[in-house]
């Protein structure tokens, strides 16, 4: 088989695996968010649909497929149909250039980088996709031929454009220090444990990026543009069933991408927080420990679940989890699983932070939001660039 064919097949395999993981993550993010926000509000969240409400995303998906999909009168049909596709495809694209693990891996004897695509300018690719994702929102708002969507769409795209500025400026500090646009090189510059990660030296950039990322994905507390009390639904008011599901998925996929970016840029991506000395070789078994402890907890609570279905399904899931944990302790798998494990833990932490912010903070008014972005965050990120360039020049 010639080289091109093998390359295409291996890339296709990586794409399929990553897309399946991303879509599952997006679907179960909806469950996670509902459960966590509910528990923060002293209620249960989805409980009935399956054990612990775990079937809720599947039922929501089925609902979206079967609902009526009306197209309002007077909409611009091409753009109306294009906008959700644009939003979803762009939101799912950035994960292609993220480094998912160290170095190269061996897929059926073919050596390839541990990411879907390895590009020298991966940071700029992510920014390019972020810049283009404004279109999904703006065109959706405009094409709906209605007041609330137009207003919501324009406000939302103005918000996204403004926070894009501080988003990109807060990363310039890291580019100055590491001298590269490649996300993999940025992660490799943070090797050496927790103290080498960039969140401490670049604390201004970290805070700026975190806030801008929350605003960029139109999430609470910056979600005035899609709040029911304000604009009915903002830019996605006139969209029903599957197209609305696409916007929904695009928002969660953007959240996952933003969490990945924060982890890669400031928290060392796939690197372990422990130094890589032999004294810390026991940390190689942390993925196993996490999976086994999680599995045992689920087993115990599953055997005592209130419905019979739960008492069967949950222990099965728990046993699968324990099995994965044992698998991770086997010598061929252990070095390979370290990178993805730490990356997933950090992404999970930031996703939890997103949901935590939603459940805790009140919404910010639109003019306060724009003032905050232009008059506070942008000067702050510029100050970060200034300080970092002074530090680099003095070295």
């Amino acid at each position, binding site marked *: 088989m010639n080289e091109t064919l093998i390359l295409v097949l291996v890339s296709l395999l990586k794409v399929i695996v990553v897309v399946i993981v991303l879509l599952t993550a997006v679907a179960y993010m909806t469950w996670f968010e509902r459960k966590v926000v509910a528990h923060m509000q002293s209620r249960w969240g989805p409980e009935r649909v399956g054990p612990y409400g775990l079937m809720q995303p599947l039922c929501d998906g089925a609902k979206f497929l079967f609902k009526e999909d009306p197209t309002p009168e007077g909409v611009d049909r091409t753009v109306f149909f294009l906008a959700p596709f644009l939003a979803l495809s762009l939101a799912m694209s950035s994960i292609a250039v993220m480094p998912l693990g160290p170095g190269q891996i061996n897929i059926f004897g073919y050596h390839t980088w541990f990411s879907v695509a390895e590009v020298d*300018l991966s940071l700029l690719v992510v*920014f390019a996709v972020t*810049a*283009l994702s404004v*279109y999904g929102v*703006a*065109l959706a708002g405009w094409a709906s031929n209605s007041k609330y969507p*137009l207003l919501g769409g324009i406000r939302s795209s103005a918000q996204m*454009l403004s926070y894009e500025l501080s988003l990109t400026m807060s990363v310039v500090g890291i580019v100055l220090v590491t001298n590269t646009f490649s996300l993999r090189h940025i992660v490799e510059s943070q090797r050496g444990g927790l103290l080498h990660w960039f969140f401490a030296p670049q604390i201004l950039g970290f805070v700026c990026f975190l806030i801008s990322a929350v605003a960029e994905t139109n999430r609470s507390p910056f979600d005035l543009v899609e709040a029911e009390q304000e604009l009915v639904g903002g830019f996605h008011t006139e969209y029903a069933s599957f197209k609305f599901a696409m916007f929904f998925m695009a928002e969660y996929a953007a959240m996952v991408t933003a969490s990945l970016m924060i982890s890669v840029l400031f928290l060392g991506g796939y690197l372990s927080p422990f130094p890589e000395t032999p004294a810390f070789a026991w940390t190689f078994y942390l993925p196993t420990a996490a999976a086994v402890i999680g599995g045992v907890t689920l087993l115990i609570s599953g055997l005592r679940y209130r419905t019979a279905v739960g008492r069967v399904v949950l222990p099965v899931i728990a046993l699968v989890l324990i099995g994965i944990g044992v698998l991770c302790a086997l010598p061929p798998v252990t070095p390979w699983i370290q990178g993805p494990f730490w990356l997933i833990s950090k992404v999970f932490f930031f996703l939890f932070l997103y949901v935590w912010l939603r459940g805790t903070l009140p919404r910010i008014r639109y003019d306060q939001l724009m003032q905050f972005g232009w008059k506070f965050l942008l000067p702050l990120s510029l100050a970060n660039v200034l300080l970092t360039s002074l530090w680099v020049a003095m070295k």
Partner: protein
Amino acid sequence: MTVEHILFFILAAVAVGGAINLILLSHPIHSALALIVVMVALAAIYLLLGAELLAMVQIIVYAGAIMVLFVFIIMLLNAGLEERTSLSRAATWVGLPCGAILTGILAWRMTISGPGPFAPGAEAADASGALSHMLMTSYVFPFELTSILILVAILGAVVLAKRDF
């Protein structure tokens, strides 16, 4: 017929198709979207030539900022469908033939001449680093002057749009 050739022809077809759609579509928003397609196709062609930084900057700046501005203006101006009129006589008798002749001359010259000389630093492994280095040393004066030009434009827009108190 290597993969690069095939990719180039596909991207060129997309770019030319987008440009033709830009002129022929009747709604301004559709024309703006066609222009975005042209910009993205051009960025992909830059990637084929090995100019990675330029391709990314093209998407971030042109397709991601300038075209968003265009789309915003068209949305807020509420521009409706274009009225269809027949081509003016000047366009039919002078414009179209001249356009065809110009395209023919360009195509003929481009086919008989080979590629031009590459700029220094284009073959470097770190092309974006070499480009940035040149931008900050040999071409720093035009670079800063262009930034001031953009600043003047922003100031002009702010002054023009100010409310009269």
